[in-house]
């Protein structure tokens, strides 16, 4: 083949290649073309464009236009080509080192910070479209990369609940690992971050979740011997570390208040998406609400919650509840005409009973003992205002409660709180201390 023939073939090939590129660009308009002018137009000076006057403004407008355009399509062309599904959820313009801005070497030289757009997808993938590129380069993350929390031994309690734990206690060892969901294989050495958050209105507390004035830890604490998190950070409910070969082991120390605590896990060194149970159920299991007795022989009432900051306040363990019913049932027989009223016991999952809703309770307050479903305040009626010097009505109550393994402490309101100094309301703080 002669040299002329070779040149012809080369020109023909270039033509077809260019045709292919243009066709592709037409298929994905706005995504693959940065330079608004065709190189031939630039060569003959027939194309003027803001790019050449104010490139930064143009890049920003262009990036937004491309992003909006990609959002309007079902799936962007480049993403589809790269195996990414869905639409970009955000974008960012990145400016690199100054360099040649023009697409073809035949355009007149124009130097400036080289721009690029990064499109971010919900699955964690990102596509990088540099000024010099026609197609974006995509950093693909397999959709099957998942972050999974589980107990080290045994199964999670449910699809939602990772494990349950009583207030102020520490869980058995838990595990966070990054896996390929399809193969179930562990992906090693991934940097992860776990963050705790309190679910609002859980655990019977219907007041503000956070109180900046009170230093009570309401989230609990994540701990791991392999963590990079300092103790101070741990108090605020975060844990960072590397999953190593088999995942990162950690424990959770529950706070004093009960409630649902959600662990949000993320990978900091690569993309991953959290799946599986993520909630720590903090509270005491098996509590039952005290029910009023309508028995004609042994009637007793249950008073409404003494705190507007909480949903229900009369929860007790099953055994404590049955003993309470037994106590109440015995009492009318012992003191005819006198009826018991059940006051505040514990919240629906027990834990800290911050009567004022401030996530704290003074140590001196007897509500500090209402945290296990074993303590209850009992009013002796028909009249709340009883003469405390008349111990006759107290004796039967004390004798019956004593025989049921209860610790009884008669309490009265402080004189300063009383409108009528003559009558001082007495009620009984009863702690059922022998119940398992």
């Amino acid at each position, binding site marked *: 083949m002669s040299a002329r023939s070779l040149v012809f073939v080369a020109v023909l090939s270039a033509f077809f290649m260019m045709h292919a590129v243009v066709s592709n660009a037409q298929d994905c308009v706005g995504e693959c073309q940065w330079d608004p002018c065709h190189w031939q137009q630039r060569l003959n000076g027939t194309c003027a464009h803001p790019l050449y006057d104010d490139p930064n403004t143009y890049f920003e407008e262009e990036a937004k236009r491309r992003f909006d355009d990609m959002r309007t399509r079902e799936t962007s062309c480049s993403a589809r080509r790269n195996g990414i599904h869905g639409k970009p959820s955000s974008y960012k313009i990145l400016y690199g080192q100054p360099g040649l801005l023009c697409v073809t070497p035949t355009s007149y030289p124009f130097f400036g910070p080289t721009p690029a757009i990064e499109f971010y997808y919900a699955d964690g993938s990102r596509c990088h479209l540099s000024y010099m590129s026609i197609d974006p380069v995509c950093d693909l993350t397999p959709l099957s990369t998942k972050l999974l929390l589980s107990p080290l031994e045994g199964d999670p309690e449910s699809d939602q609940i990772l494990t349950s734990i009583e207030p102020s206690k520490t869980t058995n060892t838990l595990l966070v690992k990054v896996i390929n969901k399809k193969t179930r294989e562990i992906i090693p050495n991934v940097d992860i971050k776990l963050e705790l958050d309190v679910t609002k209105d859980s655990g019977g507390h219907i007041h503000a979740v956070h109180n900046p004035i009170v230093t009570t830890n309401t989230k609990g604490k994540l701990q791991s011997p392999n963590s990079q998190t300092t103790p101070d950070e741990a108090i605020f409910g975060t844990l960072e570390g590397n999953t190593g070969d088999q995942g990162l082991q950690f424990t959770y120390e529950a706070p004093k208040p009960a409630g649902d605590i959600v662990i949000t896990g993320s990978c900091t060194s690569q993309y991953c998406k959290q799946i599986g149970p993520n909630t720590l159920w903090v509270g005491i299991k098996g509590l039952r609400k005290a029910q009023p007795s309508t028995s004609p022989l042994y009637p007793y009432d249950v008073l409404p919650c003494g705190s507007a900051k909480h949903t229900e306040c009369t929860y007790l363990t099953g055994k404590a509840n049955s003993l309470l019913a037994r106590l109440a049932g015995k009492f009318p027989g012992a003191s005819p005409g006198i009826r018991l009223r059940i006051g505040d016991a514990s919240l629906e999952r027990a834990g800290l009973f911050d009567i004022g809703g401030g996530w704290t309770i003074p140590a001196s307050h*007897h509500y*500090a003992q209402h945290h296990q479903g074993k303590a209850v305040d009992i009013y002796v009626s028909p009249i709340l205002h009883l003469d405390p010097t008349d111990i006759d009505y107290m*004796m039967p109550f004390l*004798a019956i409660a004593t025989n049921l393994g209860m610790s009884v402490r008669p*309490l009265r309101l*402080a*004189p300063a709180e009383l409108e009528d100094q003559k009558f001082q309301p007495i009620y009984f703080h009863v702690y059922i201390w*022998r119940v398992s």
Partner: protein
Amino acid sequence: MKITYLQLVIAILLATFSHPTTSADPDPGTLMGTMLQPGAAEEGIVYDPASGNYTVTYKVPDGLYQVVYYPRTKIAPTVETTYGPWGYGRDHVYSYRVTNGAKAQQPLTNIRVLVNKVYGSVKPPGWNGDIAPGFKNPNPTQNSDVYMAGWYSFKGIAPGDTVAGFGFESRDLPGVGTIEILGLGPITVYAEGGPGGAVRKELNKLSRNDFVPYLAPVPLIYNFIGSYFTTNGAAGTLTSLQDHFQQLLNMELIEPVFAERLTKTLSAAIDALKLSDRQSARSHLEDFRVMIDEAQHAESKATLEAPINKVAARVLRYDGNYVERKL
């Protein structure tokens, strides 16, 4: 000595206007405590050996309070126990006769004890009884809940008096339990919230242990020997007796070395029963009985200290004998 007229008049006036007070009838004001000036006293609980009472000083938001806590242990109880297989279906009947000694300062008002399942509680006239389920088993080797059986009276047993007729029936055999006996004095009333922090913890501990413990035979040994005798049932009963040894060790009622000897003998009897070898089991149980008798005999020589408490020896001997007779 000559009494002047003036002295006589003063004596009559004093006798007329003075109001007799006793420790059981204090000024109502003291029941509710008194409010102190800030800093007048330190928070805490102080025992007064002269009165046997505790002075509780505590802070609440309202101020500093001081109140007297009257312990419920100012009684002098003794308990006589009778038990045997005289009940319905040859179940065991347990009877208790309780005395409040003459030196007691309070009426004895409460008797309570943790037991295995019991029924048919009987009570003396004027007393109330209760059997409540769902309590923690005091035996660390047992997971099952136990019952709290007890009796109470608002009048109680006066100092120097004895009341019989407390009792119940149970299928189970006797072990050594702690009967908790309480008197009742003035009831302390606390200002809102009552003591907090360290004072509350100390007061909780004080009130939880505010009883006189009395060791007595109570149904604690699960009995698996029913109407139809089986060697497996007998082995189960002996295993339950063997489990009771840990409780006896915790209560320091038996020396560890002697306990080990007895449990080994019981193990041999259990193994024999599992092989349906009644003869051999009977022989081991005889050894078990003799060892206990010899230990009791050692005490009578006054040269050696018995390695086992008398109540413990009595119930162990009874239980071993009960199974031996069934073989």
